């Protein structure tokens, strides 16, 4: 009995004294979403380990749970991540709450210049307050919402003739949202290769950010703005302008006419499934998935890519992330060393070659860049007109309000587009008042 007690006591003491983190201090844990580019980063990071001897560990969380998981980790002061590739919208809260390390001094000391990176990515992924030279991340993964289409179906002579007869133009990747709708209608319900196919897969997901990211891809080109004057939170007439209403109506029209049955709660994964299984002619999805799709053994050679169609202006919904050092890290030197290594032009070039979207000018301004991948030119074009959601510290509340208003209108068919956007202004006004910003 005494022995048993002694053993139990020793075990309890060991458990109590064991470090909370399961990583060794010299290791680095990098947290990100679980998707194709994350696999490329694992491959790329092997070079860092080879050069420095620092073991890299990775914590990848599926997209629908990524924000929940990581924001809870930051809010609870967890020590899971030394480095975090977090969404652009988190930067305001993470900077103000002290979750990320401010990198200005480090950049100055190491000679890392933000002017070496594409301006849109620096603005979106690194700065808080927006546009000021206060850097909380290094642009890591440029991304925007784009489109995939079935090249083989578009190239079918019979379909081309029928399309030309009907719309008096060639069957080609649509350049405007009107063309997109007509093209989706053209394919909807059609039988191709003995199978019924549908027009387009778009984002309709309710729980995280899906329908907001999808609908803003229509709203931005139609002229939707968050504020009349940046920084003033004056939303009336911007969020619910006639142009914004038209954009939202267009998104709903495409959802109603041209998506596969049961497409009521779909995001990236569902879209990829629908496209790869030959269900849809076109799919909205992030550029990040294009390298994987281009290599897909079943549909890779049959897939083409196009930039988000325009309406009044050319615009795309911004994706992508910067890489930040988590202030709570036990291995600050190691984490900063990784950032320094990652910022090197040669590493950025390899990052692009492996399937990551580098934001470094050495990659993007390379004369051969546009032809380096079948989606490279479109990526450059998209990044020239990206717009992002609020990056405010209260972004989570702002996002949830928009998710609800959009899903209620687009999928649940409640009210009008104007009512949805008016309601959104009410929600956002209440949030900003609570924040003391109005």
């Amino acid at each position, binding site marked *: 009995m005494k022995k048993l007690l002694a053993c139990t006591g020793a075990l309890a003491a060991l458990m109590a004294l064991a470090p909370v983190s399961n990583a060794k201090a010299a290791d680095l844990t990098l947290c990100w979403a679980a998707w194709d580019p994350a696999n490329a980063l694992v491959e790329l990071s092997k070079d860092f380990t080879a050069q420095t001897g620092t073991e890299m560990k990775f914590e990848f969380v599926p997209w629908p749970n990524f924000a929940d998981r990581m924001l809870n980790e930051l809010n609870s002061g967890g020590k899971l991540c030394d480095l975090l590739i977090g969404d652009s919208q988190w930067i305001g809260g993470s900077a103000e709450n002290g979750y990320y390390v401010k990198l200005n001094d480090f950049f100055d000391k190491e000679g890392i210049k933000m002017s070496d990176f594409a301006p849109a990515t620096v603005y979106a992924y690194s700065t808080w307050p927006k546009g000021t030279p206060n850097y909380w991340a290094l642009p890591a993964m440029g991304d925007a919402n784009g489109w995939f289409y079935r090249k083989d179906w578009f190239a079918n002579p019979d379909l081309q003739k029928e399309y030309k007869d009907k719309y008096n133009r060639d069957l080609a990747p649509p350049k405007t949202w009107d063309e997109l709708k007509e093209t989706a209608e053209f394919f909807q319900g059609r039988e191709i290769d003995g199978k019924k196919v549908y027009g387009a897969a778009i984002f309709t997901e309710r729980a995280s950010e899906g329908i907001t990211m999808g609908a803003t891809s229509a709203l931005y080109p139609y002229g939707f703005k968050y504020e009349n004057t940046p920084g003033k939170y004056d939303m009336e007439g911007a969020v619910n302008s006639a142009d914004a209403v038209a954009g939202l109506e267009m998104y709903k029209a495409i959802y109603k006419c041209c998506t596969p049955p*049961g497409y*009521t709660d779909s995001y990236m994964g569902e879209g990829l499934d629908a496209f790869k299984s030959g269900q849809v002619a076109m799919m909205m999805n992030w550029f990040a998935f294009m390298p994987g799709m281009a290599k897909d053994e079943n549909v890779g050679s049959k897939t083409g890519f196009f930039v988000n169609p325009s309406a009044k202006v050319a615009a795309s919904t911004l994706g992508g992330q910067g890489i930040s050092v988590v202030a709570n890290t036990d291995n600050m030197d190691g984490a900063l060393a990784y950032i320094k290594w990652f910022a090197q032009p040669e590493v950025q070039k390899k990052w692009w070659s492996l399937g990551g979207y580098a934001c470094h000018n050495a990659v993007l301004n390379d004369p051969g860049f546009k032809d380096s991948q079948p989606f490279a030119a479109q990526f450059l074009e998209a990044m020239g007109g990206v717009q992002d959601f609020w990056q405010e510290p209260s972004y989570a509340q702002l996002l949830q309000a928009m998710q*609800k208003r959009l899903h209620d209108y687009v*999928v649940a068919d409640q009210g009008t587009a104007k009512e949805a956007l008016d309601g959104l202004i009410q929600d956002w006004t209440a949030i900003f008042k609570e924040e003391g910003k109005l």
Partner: protein
Amino acid sequence: MPDIEAIADRAASATPHGVAKVVRGLSDRSIAWLFVAPTMVLLLAINIFPLIWTVYLSFTNFASNRPNRPVVNVGLKWYQDILSSPEIWAAMQATAHFVFWTILFQTLIGFSLAYLIDRKFRGHAFWTTIILIPMMLSPAVVGNFWKFLYQPQIGLFNYVVSFFTGIPPSSFEMLGSVTLAPWAIVIVDTWMWTPYVMLICLAGLRSIPDYILEAAEVDRASRWQQFWSITLPMALPFIMLAVLFRGIENFKMFDMVMLLTGGGPGSTTELASIALKRQAFEAYRTGYSSAFAIILFVVVFGLANVYVKALNKVKQR
């Protein structure tokens, strides 16, 4: 029969002198407290303290994603906001719809199945096991499983409906339609939990002594009279218990519905617990969601108390 005194002597001699000295001075009551103290401490730490802390948070503007923001007392603001919020009332309405219909269907079908299973027939043990399978599955598995069954293009459910009604399978969406989605979650919960109600009802039916029914037969009571005057009243406390358990469970239903519909389309199936989760862990309105949690707790606690009193009355009859 072991010699108690000898055992006590052996225990006393094995107790270290220091411990024995301390214990010898304690009263029986103190020793009893000593034994229950660890459990009490544990309960206080994991049940009572969080509850008190939640009550405190419900009067503040605390947001878990804004730890550096000064915490301000907001009084009853969140309670007022919640009780006057159309979204919250819509969530409560969706919850009431879900709880009412699931309990009604589960009780009717569960009791009927129990009544049938209670009759001895060939293979009844096998069929009982088959019927119990759904409740053995994890709600996460059930949610994903039914999501496929409800898929309009490949789902079995739509094909079965189509087979019996002639409606094309792709022409309706159980999870995507505002009208059908509230019923889709009722169907799944009924499928999963009817066996549980059946088990409790079966226990009630088997607790009825045979001699009462035999006496009724001797008195030439019809089958209907036996059921109405003996079986149902005697099984009623068990049925009420099943209703209580399912009511409490379904009032806080989250996992299965979250996986099936995510609260959609729109907010059609956004039950109170899903609305609470969104406020607490997606919008990070910790103070607001604490007030909402307290309101839900009071509602469930109040309703359960009223119900338990009714149950006791039925048992005393």
